[in-house]
C-alpha cells in the first residue's frame, strides 16, 4: 500500500495552491486543438490542459497530471466522464477534500 503520492482533487480555485503537484480535475471541454484542451473547470473558470488528449473526447473529461500554473495542468491521463456529469457536487467534493476532510485524502 502506498499513499506517498496522492492526486489532489482540484477546481480552478484550488489549482494554484498545488502547482508542481499531481492533481486531478474534471473539465467541460470548450476547445480541443490537438496539443492542448481549453476547458471549463467545475467552478466555472477556464483551465488549459496540455498533453495528448485521446482521439474522442466526451463533454466532460477527467484529467490527471501535474499542475504547472495557476490555470494549467500538464496531463498524462485522460478519462472520458461522459456527456452528463454533476459538476456542482464534484465541485463541493473538491472543497471538502481540501478542507476539513483533507485527512481522508492526502
Amino acid at each position, binding site marked *: *500500500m502506498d499513499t506517498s503520492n496522492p492526486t489532489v*482533487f482540484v477546481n480552478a480555485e484550488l489549482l494554484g495552491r498545488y502547482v508542481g503537484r499531481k492533481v486531478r480535475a474534471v473539465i467541460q471541454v470548450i476547445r480541443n486543438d490537438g496539443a492542448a484542451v481549453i476547458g471549463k473547470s467545475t467552478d466555472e473558470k477556464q483551465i488549459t490542459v496540455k498533453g495528448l488528449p485521446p482521439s474522442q473526447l466526451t463533454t466532460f473529461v477527467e484529467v490527471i497530471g501535474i499542475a504547472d500554473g495557476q490555470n494549467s495542468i500538464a496531463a498524462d*491521463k485522460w*478519462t472520458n466522464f461522459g456527456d452528463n456529469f454533476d459538476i456542482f457536487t464534484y465541485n*463541493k*467534493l473538491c472543497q471538502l477534500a481540501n478542507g476539513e476532510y483533507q*485527512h*481522508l*485524502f*492526502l
Partner: protein
Amino acid sequence: MMFSSSQFDGFVPSQSTQTADSASPNPSKSWGTQGLIPVTVKQLSEAHQSGDEKSNFSIDGVDVTNVTLVGMVSEKTERVTDVSFALDDGTGRVECRRWLNESSDTKEMEEIHDGLYVRLVGHLRSSQGKKQLVAFAVRPVTNFDEVTFHFIDCIHQHLQKCRVKGDANAHSQMEDFSTSTPMRNISNGSQISGQLSVDGLKGSDQKVLEFLQQNYAQEKGVHRDEIAQQLKIPVNKIMESIRTLEEEGLIYSTIDEYHYKSTTDA
C-alpha cells in the same frame, strides 16, 4: 440507483439503531461487523490492526470487515487461480487480488483492464506485513457520478462514526454539510441529530443546558427570562430548548413553571 448506499443491509443505520447505539457503553462495537464501508486507500493505510488475527482491522474505532472503493486499475496480472492488480483512487495505491473460483469470476475480470475506473468490494487483509485487499467483486464504472458519490460517501460514513464517538465538532460539521450538499443520503444527518442524547443536542439546547449546569448550585433554579437575557437568545427559543431538555430528563422545573434546574453539575 445502482450505486445507492441504501442497497446494502446495515450500511446506513436506521434512526432507532442510532439512538440505541449512542446510549450503550461501547456504541461503536456493534457497527461495522456486518455491512459495507466506503473507504479511501488513505483510510485503509491508517486502519489499525485489532487483535492477533491478520484480518481484523478498525477504522475510526469501528471494526471493519468489508470495504468498497472506487479507483483506477493498473498492473493487472492474470494467473491461473487469481488475478492481481493495483487500485489507485487518488489517495493512494493498494494491491488487490481476485480469486477465480468460478467461471463467472473469470468472466468478470476479463472486463477489467489497466486504466479503467472500477468499483471494488473486498476485504482488508495483512500479508507479510503488507496490507492487501481480497476483492469479491470488481465492476467497471459506467456513470462517473459514482466516483463523486463514493468519495462523498466516505466523508459521510467517517462523520457518522465520529458522531457516535461523541465528537461535538464532527456533529456541527455534519449539520453544515447536510444543508450545503444536495445528496439525499447525507441530509438524513440533520434529522437524526434532533433525536440523539446529550451529544446530539442542537446549539441553543446545548447552551441552555450548559448555562443551567453552571448554575447548579442555585437551589431554586434559574428563571427562564434570566436564561434568555444571559444567553442573548429569544425567550421562545429558550422555551423550545427547555421543552427538549426536560423531555430528555436533563433539566426540571423547581419552584414554578418558569424556574429550571439541571439534573447534573457542570
